[in-house]
């Protein structure tokens, strides 16, 4: 595959790995958080950990879109499908997220709810056009990567005068989540969760640019290296982070220059700003209420806001008591430190959201890396 295989080259990977081992100071530890689920997936899928020195640990951050989706939001979507009879459309990964009462969208579908998997909000628009007698709701989730397409779908629905299309908006914002992690007591108290730097988002940064991370470097003195989702991207970013730490620098650097600029995609940002505004606060699974961390649909487009249209109320639901997703998403615990991991909580029967998507810290470790810490009860 042209332009992709080059970033999976074995010889080059070993050379970068050797450089990391060579340049890492054996007298100290390095702890870097990769924010994005895409990075977590790449690290696990390619066994990148095997190429890193023992004193360098990667902490899997909260950037897995389905992992941070709270139970209450999935419940809202299920209620819409069951109680209001809507045709509910969403992305594939969302189908398995555990909701209340042992349900998920996939299980709700099996019980008769009309739930459709789509690849794009435009597919939901098409369904709305083709089914004028039905209410079609797009359950929109994800970070800044998936937000512009939702904005465009809403604008297109308006220009086409679609009367039966609306969006259950659950889009969240990356910089707010990073700030939240940095302000958490565990990180503030350096002895509990030291984070020496961040591997910055790939696709998110294409949209928002590298500028929004500059505050993390200046205010919190944490290096950030924006990286692509290929294994060589991640390794090169780790090498750049090691160098920043060694040299006492805290800067925003960009490894993903083939796609990310400082200003980002102005056109996408304008579409987002036109359709959405920032919510005062939003519940993240694992992180709790995070101020100014999510988007809602502006009043101008209220007709397309499913929350207004169906007068929905949000009912928060607590995670399973023993589920450690929250601590894992903040980097306080490793998946294996959760009592449920690999026992009652597996990719087939996820209790917590980190086990749902292969981008989640728990599922990535279970599916790709559990040979490193056997024994685990086999499925």
């Amino acid at each position, binding site marked *: 595959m042209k332009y992709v295989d080059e970033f999976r080259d074995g010889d080059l990977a070993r050379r970068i790995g050797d450089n990391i081992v060579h340049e890492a100071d054996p007298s100290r530890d390095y702890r870097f958080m990769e924010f994005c689920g*895409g990075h977590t997936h790449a690290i696990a899928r390619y066994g990148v950990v095997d190429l890193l020195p023992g004193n360098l640990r990667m902490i899997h951050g909260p950037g897995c879109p389905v992992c941070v989706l709270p139970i209450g939001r999935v419940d809202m979507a299920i209620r819409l499908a069951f109680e209001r009879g809507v045709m509910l459309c969403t992305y594939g990964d969302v189908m398995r997220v555990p909701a209340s009462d042992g349900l998920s969208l996939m299980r709700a579908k099996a019980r008769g709810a009309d739930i459709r998997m789509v690849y794009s909000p435009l597919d939901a628009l098409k369904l709305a056009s083709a089914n004028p007698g039905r209410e079609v709701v797009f359950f929109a989730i994800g970070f800044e990567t998936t937000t512009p397409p939702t904005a465009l779908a809403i604008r297109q629905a308006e220009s086409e005068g679609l009367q039966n299309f609306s969006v259950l908006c659950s889009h969240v914002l990356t910089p707010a989540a990073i700030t939240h992690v940095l302000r958490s007591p565990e990180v503030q108290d350096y002895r509990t969760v030291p984070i020496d730097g961040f591997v910055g988002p790939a696709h998110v940064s294409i949209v928002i640019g590298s500028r929004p991370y500059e505050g993390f470097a200046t205010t919190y003195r944490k290096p950030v290296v924006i990286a692509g989702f290929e294994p060589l991207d991640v390794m090169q970013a780790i090498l750049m982070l090691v160098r920043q730490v060694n040299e006492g620098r805290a800067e925003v650097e960009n490894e993903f220059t083939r796609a990310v600029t400082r200003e980002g995609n102005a056109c996408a940002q304008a579409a987002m700003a036109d359709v959405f505004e920032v919510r005062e606060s939003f519940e993240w699974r694992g992180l709790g209420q995070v101020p100014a961390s999510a988007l809602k649909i502006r009043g101008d487009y209220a007709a397309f806001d499913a929350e207004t249209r169906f007068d929905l109320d949000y009912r928060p639901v607590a995670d399973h008591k023993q589920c450690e997703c929250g601590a894992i998403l903040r980097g306080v615990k490793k998946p294996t430190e959760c009592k449920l991991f690999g026992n009652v909580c597996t990719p087939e029967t996820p209790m917590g959201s980190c086990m749902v998507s292969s981008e989640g810290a728990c599922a990535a470790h279970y599916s790709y890396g559990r040979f490193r810490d056997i024994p685990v009860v086999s499925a």
Partner: protein
Amino acid sequence: MATPKRDYVRPLDLKTGRIDMNHGAGGRLSAQLIAEVFVRAFDNEFLGQGNDGALLPIPAGERLVMATDAHVIFPLFFPGGDIGCLSVNGTINDVAMLGATPRYLSASFILEEGLPLAELQRIVASMARAARDAGVPIVTGDTKVVERGKGDGVFISTTCIGTVRPGLEIGGARARAGDAVLISGTIGDHGVAVLSKRESLEFETAIESDTAALHTLVAGVLAAVPHDAVHVLRDPTRGGLATTLNEIAKQSGVGMMLQESAIPILPQVDAACEMLGLDPMYIANEGKLVAIVDPESAGDVLAAMRAHPLGRDAALIGNVTADSHRFVQMASRVGGHRIVDWLSGEPLPRIC
């Protein structure tokens, strides 16, 4: 006054007609459907016996192998094949994977009210062609009709009976540490070809399903090596190569170590999976087989596969390890290691 013509039955309208509930009622119309669509296409001496069952000869001294498979697929027609040839090849392959010679097929159809007869005829013609090419006659069958909305056009269940010669022991529990793991060609072609035609997902591609009957490939491999050299054969259909290898590891109580860079995959399949956020290791194949063989015979098996048109992209992709945890592992292209786990639920695209 009109005089009825003796023995004249007005033929089915195969151009514009559709299946209705009468076709499944068991009366004259059912008999006509069977005669004009199925028997005409499948025609062979055993079907011609005209009984509800078929009386079949088998070679003396051989053991019987039987496999059955239900086929449901959307869309019914996809690049490189359709539900018809798929239902013949898939079941033949299940028999062939025990080293058996497939000999007879049965087919039962659940038709949905409203199915165009022209589509049914196309599907049946495709089955007949696949069965003829494979040299395995369809000797008995059944048809039922369900109301509109209760089927997906047509569901086809097929059963295949084969025979295996004495002394040949091939099965999923026979993999041993040290064995070589081979695949007969590129992975993921079928699944991606079908996905490319799904309503919400249409993308331009020249990828075709690899649906094929593999028994002659199996025969070629078995002829090339000592009779006890081939330990396991299996076709990695639903769940893909990853799931098949995990099944074998579990059955045999072993682990495996694969080399990612050795696994053959078409660049366009790789690219489609990349775009859709899917892993080709979990995508279905319909014309590939995994062979787990004595390491001493690996070279001969590979050569025999590559000498066959259905095995020209065959590759040695790893080996069997002693591992009480039965982990299928992979050395990635960049040099790290990971587990290649069972498929978990339906493969769903990632968002990030």
